[in-house]
């Protein structure tokens, strides 16, 4: 790896890769790195994606983070967001405070829901997202507190819960990627349990296992997460001129 490529760059590329092949849908990123991933994918290999300004508009140009010089190509107030979610024409990348081996996620609360030890965001749009369209996750600090055997509250459905709801739900439900500061994961196993897809440069498989609170599927030869090429890096620097991505992971 060239020395001027950082962990944040690797992570943004992994985020962008999760949108590969999505075509003409709403690529929605919650937070700096997911948003950059969606914008980078659109600016490079997935040009038909729609991306938003995080407020109420689809942005037609390659808008840098924090930029205001936007070409508005559509209006997407919250009501239209919900319509788009339920229609399935969306792939969101969001956070998770806990995730289990089937991809059940929790952003709602830690401890019992009735009287939580820590009230977090609540379920927000997680139930509707995960039952309607592709949902990926970005987790800036992987640990056994986050990668857990059982989540305290299911805000996003994992594959086991989706399977119990029948064929229609299973057709819509998809968790393409989980990206952390250590590695990239998917659920493309026969049992739809989490699989280690690649480790970031300088991270060992043992590091990943030590920070995972459940049994991971691990192949015999785990590749290294890919770095951005020169042109991708140039685009990324244009989309994030102030380097906000470097504050998210280190």
């Amino acid at each position, binding site marked *: 790896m060239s020395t001027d490529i950082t962990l944040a760059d690797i992570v943004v590329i992994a985020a962008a890769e999760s949108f590969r092949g999505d075509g003409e849908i709403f690529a929605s990123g919650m937070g700096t790195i997911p948003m950059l991933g969606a914008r980078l994918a659109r600016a490079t290999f997935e040009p038909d994606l729609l991306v938003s300004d995080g*407020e*109420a*508009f689809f942005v037609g140009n390659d808008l840098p983070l924090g930029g205001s010089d936007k070409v508005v190509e559509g*209006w997407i*107030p*919250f*009501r239209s967001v*919900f319509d788009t*979610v*339920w229609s399935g024409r969306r792939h969101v990348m969001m956070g998770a405070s806990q995730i289990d081996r089937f991809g059940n996620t*929790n952003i*709602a*609360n830690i401890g019992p*829901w*009735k*009287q*939580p*030890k*820590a*009230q*977090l*965001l*609540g*379920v*927000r*749009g*997680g*139930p*509707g997202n*995960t*039952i*309607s369209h592709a949902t990926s996750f970005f987790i800036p600090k992987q640990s056994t507190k986050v990668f857990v055997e059982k989540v305290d*509250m*299911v*805000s*996003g*459905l994992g594959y086991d*819960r*989706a399977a*119990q*709801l*029948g064929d*229609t*739900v299973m057709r*819509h439900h998809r968790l393409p990627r989980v990206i952390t500061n250590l590695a990239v994961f998917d659920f493309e196993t026969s049992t739809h349990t989490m699989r280690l897809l690649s480790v970031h440069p300088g991270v060992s498989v043992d590091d990943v296992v030590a920070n995972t609170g459940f049994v991971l599927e691990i192949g015999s030869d785990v590749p290294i997460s890919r770095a951005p090429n020169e042109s991708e890096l140039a685009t990324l620097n244009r989309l994030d001129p102030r380097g906000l991505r470097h504050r998210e992971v280190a």
Partner: protein
Amino acid sequence: MTTDKRTTLDSAVATLESGMTLGIGGWGSRRKPMSLVRALLRTDIKDLTVVSYGGPDVGLLCAAGRVKKLIYGFVSLDSIALEPHFRSARQNATVAECVEYDEGMLQWALYAGSLRLPFLPTRAGLGSGVVDVNPLLKTVVSPYADAEELLAVPAIRLDAAFVHLNRSDIRGNAQFLGPDLYFDDLFLGACEPGRRFLSCEKIVTTEQMLQEASFHTLRINRSMVDGVIESPNGAHFTLCTPDYERDEKFQAAYVKAASDTTEWEAFQNQFLSGTEADYQNAVAQWRKEIAS
């Protein structure tokens, strides 16, 4: 013949009673009818069921012990993710009953209420923690060939509704000028006639509304509104674009004060102990002090 629906904040909230179900428009820390909420805090009304895409409206009502039941899609301050008073209310279990919905489910509950339907079906929420912690939620099976089992989100009907818009005429035809109506029309639609209160930045003539923006912004009509209150800066400290952005400094001060009992008492004395005019003056004074 035109009906002049103008009223005052205090007259509006005086029509509410303890135990009622109140819906509050806006979204998180965006275009919240804060001056109506502040007026409500000046009354003795309690044991409310509050329905909201919550922000500081829910926070303030929880902190003041006015909420018996809370039905929410979330409670957040947007730029500050966690609402401190809501957080302590949940962690100390000071609100007797909480109903937590997926964001889209809450829209469906209000939409069903506004259409006088008993429920609306959706997949959102099925299989999630929302149904795990809410055994009262039922499902319904599609009567068609697919026979799919769907979540039946029960309708919410409101006894009172508060919303804050940018402009209104004296009859309650109202206009939003920002990027999003949120679900204000559904809060008004789900509410029994009589206590549907709309505050606004400015009351204008009916003709003036279309001089300022296109007809697409006229999403609230007078059949949905019982009382209109001109309340400049009434959404403060939440945003009310294009009239003003969120007062981030004040919001940060609110959050800081909420973290400590003594500081919160001081904050209440400084800002929430008088009329709406007193509040606005105290905010203006506070701005001068932090600027100097």
